[in-house]
């Protein structure tokens, strides 16, 4: 008993230390974090958070529970149980959900009105399942035409396939000589799939390693985040377009008419020429190590000034990341920046949903990796953030727009804009170092009359590089410090005057 109380005492001291020092957090006055009390006995490793039309929150958990939370009474109720690692929910009505679990997409319905589900109907299971521990499934999300999209994780080389699998086995989807690489031995592991309203499940895009989280922006573009590892130099946000391949080779064996043998043994330049690069790269150790679900801020200003941009959860840190995109040369690319660090936020930020009041609910998970448990809520206090609103590529450099007018003196100092560029290699190795790291000089700058826009000219711009900008001590006109000082732009395509 004695050792127990010592342990507890130590843990609380330890947590105090951890939170006090972590990433030298500043108090964020624009957003505050609230922690939701979870029901006793629940191992609250969260797989999904969504809202019902009646304003209640529905959440799923690793041990198979689906629970409903009433934000007014703060009461939890069990809706369904026994599911296999449910990692996604699409709400149909107050009594009907689509839930993505390991073996299938399932319609779960309370048909007798007692508040608990009694019907568990298969919607689709038309994909392979080898029983490898890493075969997580994500989604579904729905487009305006009623098509559903799900993402299937590749299988992990850290494990194997089971003696009995569902679906055909293609041994070519794995490089057994290369230890630890993810693989795709059963159909469509590592693919994004489209389920038409008629029920046909169609593979649409390949090359995903661990696409934990898919989502749309306001224009209906579909995105999936992939996690750093073998063939993924650093984590990335991908714009999912039908027919494209996003880099992880094993998945290619499920392409229609694939006749090039084991894709792991194709020359890297060949694979590289086939792949679509990430629209936004999340530099590892800088922005995110394990990005999760992208969600568009569709609150129309209720959540602050970042309407239309994407927010992305991060597992490894007490962080939510913000992504801003633009179309350059016909393709989406853009920048990522921390959105919120700490301020009570935990790690393991796995699922995001906006509540009816415009607050952001965050479900947390670790699942054996780095993370936390539970659900938190991020609320906009109404105080305008002091932050970069957008970063756009120009022909000569970048335009930065800020959420507030800047202090002119600090904003005009060239030394307050430190750029460096680097690229990540595409290879079978786990992750990539940064290559050709170079500081890029800012040679000229201009500030707009309203002091909100800074136009920077760089000494050079090179496609295929991440441009990381570190801001110095720039103040807003009212003397505030900027909340975030590092922003990373993924330059896939240059802006040319003709476009």
């Amino acid at each position, binding site marked *: 008993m004695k*050792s127990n109380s*010592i*342990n507890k005492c130590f843990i609380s001291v*330890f947590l105090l*230390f951890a939170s006090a*020092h*972590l*990433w*030298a957090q500043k108090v964020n006055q624009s957003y505050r974090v609230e922690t939701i009390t979870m*029901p006793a*006995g*629940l191992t609250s490793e969260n797989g999904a958070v969504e809202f019902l039309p009646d304003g209640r929150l529905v959440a799923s958990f690793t*041990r*198979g*529970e689906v*629970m409903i939370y009433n934000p007014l009474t703060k009461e939890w109720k069990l809706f369904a*149980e*026994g*599911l*296999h*690692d449910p990692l996604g929910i699409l709400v149909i009505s107050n009594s009907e959900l689509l839930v993505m679990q*390991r*073996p*299938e997409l399932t319609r779960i319905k309370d048909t007798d009105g007692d508040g608990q*589900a*009694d*019907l*568990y*109907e*298969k919607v689709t*299971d038309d994909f392979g*399942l*080898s*029983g490898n*521990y890493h075969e997580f499934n994500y989604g579904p999300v729905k487009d305006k035409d009623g098509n559903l999209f799900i993402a299937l994780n590749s299988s*992990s080389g*850290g494990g194997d396939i*089971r003696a*009995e*699998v*569902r679906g055909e086995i293609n041994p070519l989807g794995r490089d057994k000589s290369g230890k*630890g690489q993810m693989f795709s031995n059963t159909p469509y592991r590592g693919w994004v799939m489209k389920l038409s309203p008629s029920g046909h499940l169609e593979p649409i895009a390949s090359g995903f390693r661990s696409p934990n989280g898919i989502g749309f922006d306001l224009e209906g573009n579909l995105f999936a985040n992939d996690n750093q*590892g073998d063939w993924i130099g650093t984590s990335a946000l991908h714009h999912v377009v039908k027919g494209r391949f996003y880099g992880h080779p094993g998945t290619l064996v499920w392409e229609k008419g694939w006749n090039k043998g084991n894709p792991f043994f194709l020359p890297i330049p060949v694979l590289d020429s086939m792949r679509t690069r990430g629209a936004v790269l999340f*530099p590892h*150790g*800088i922005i995110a*190590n394990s990005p999760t679900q992208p969600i568009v801020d569709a609150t129309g200003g209720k959540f602050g000034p970042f309407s239309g941009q994407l927010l992305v959860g991060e597992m*490894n840190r007490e962080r939510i990341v913000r992504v801003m995109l633009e179309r350059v040369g016909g393709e989406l690319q853009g920048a990522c920046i921390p959105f919120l660090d700490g301020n009570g936020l935990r790690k393991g930020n796995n699922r995001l949903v906006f509540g009816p009041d415009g607050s952001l609910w965050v479900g947390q998970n*670790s699942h*054996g*990796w*780095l993370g936390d448990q539970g659900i938190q809520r991020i609320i906009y206090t109404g105080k305008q953030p002091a932050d970069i609103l957008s970063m756009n590529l120009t022909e000569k450099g970048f335009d930065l727009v800020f959420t507030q007018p800047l202090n002119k003196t600090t904003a005009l100092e060239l030394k307050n804009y430190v750029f460096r560029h680097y690229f990540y290699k595409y290879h079978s*190795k*786990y*992750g990539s*170092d*940064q290559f050709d*790291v170079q500081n890029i000089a800012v040679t000229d700058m201009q500030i707009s009359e309203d002091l909100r826009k800074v136009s920077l000219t760089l000494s050079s711009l090179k496609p295929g590089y991440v441009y990381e900008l*570190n801001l110095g001590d720039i103040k807003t006109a009212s003397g505030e410090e900027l909340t975030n000082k*590092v922003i990373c732009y993924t330059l896939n395509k240059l802006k040319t005057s003709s476009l």
Partner: protein
Amino acid sequence: MRFVKISFSFLLALLSILQVYAQSNADTVRTIKIDVLVGLQFDLVRFNAKPGEMLKLIFSNSDDMSHNLLITKPGARLEVVNQALSLSEKGPSMDYIPNSSSVLYSIPVVNPNQFRTLSFTVPKQEGVYPYVCTLPGHGFIMFGAMYVNSDGKMPDIKDDLNIPPNRRETDHAVSSNQSMKHNEHPKEIKALHPYSPISPYLYRVFIDGASPAAIAVSLTKDLSYCWDAGTCRLRFAWRGGFLDNSELWKGKGDVSAKVIGEVFFRDHTDFPFYLKDRGKIPEYDYKGYSLINRYPEFHYTLNGIDFFELILPKEDGSGLIRKFRIPNVKNTVWFNTIPLDGAIYESSSGKWQENTLKLSASQAKEFIITMSKKERDLK
């Protein structure tokens, strides 16, 4: 302070000389192996070393993310972890190793399935030297302690504040287990769910002896069965307990649920049903289940014909009652069994032809098959 600094750099210089010396005598060096467990843990969270001893540290990484390993001055773990964090965007290119006098030795980032070694001389000063992974976020939970002393002592592991809290027990990390054996010491029982599961209830789960799309159902009377949505059939049934999911739920889940109890039936037929053409395996398609008084009634199609199957426990606990409905059946249905599968069969209708039950279309609309555990297996 100044004196301390000077003496420390002197010590460092001395150490590096010793290190060179140590490398030339590598075969006399004691080896310490450290690997990585799931959930950001070193497998070895503490070890003893003699002051001035030469050690070879092999750090292998069987995890699926990258890690490094830094040995710090006594008491300097959190300081170094925070220094590593403040490297910010420079972290990756520096292997998350800060330029700090508190870092004594370091092994740069080791990627999954790689290893690196470090040969070094243990400090002469006795003390507890932390080792830690300083990748962002890892350092607060992923650490251990090198006890440098000549008497080889370490505190009781339960009271060891130099190792992560969850490693201060020799017991397994998860004590929750519905089927805890009676002779085990009572541990702190953690609830499995926010409710007490009351049979009947089920888990969709990875379990040996079925496809990965299995459904395990706990009935009353200590009976359980596994119905396989991947193959649309009852695979096996057991008596005693239900499942132990503790390993499955502990980390990444690279294990199967454990069956608690004794399996008394396993289906060995090529398929339990033939329709119309005897000997031909029908095309199956799983449709789902609905809960009737919490018992799942499975719905599937065979050659496009709807089948419903509800499995209940026999009142005396000796087997299963399987209630079938095939409302739209138009032809003969054969139900197949194999002797030695562990069960004795009875049916509410139809005609047994050796081990096969033949049901006419009208009989097959609703029928019951009772499967009892064979007498000779009963104790």
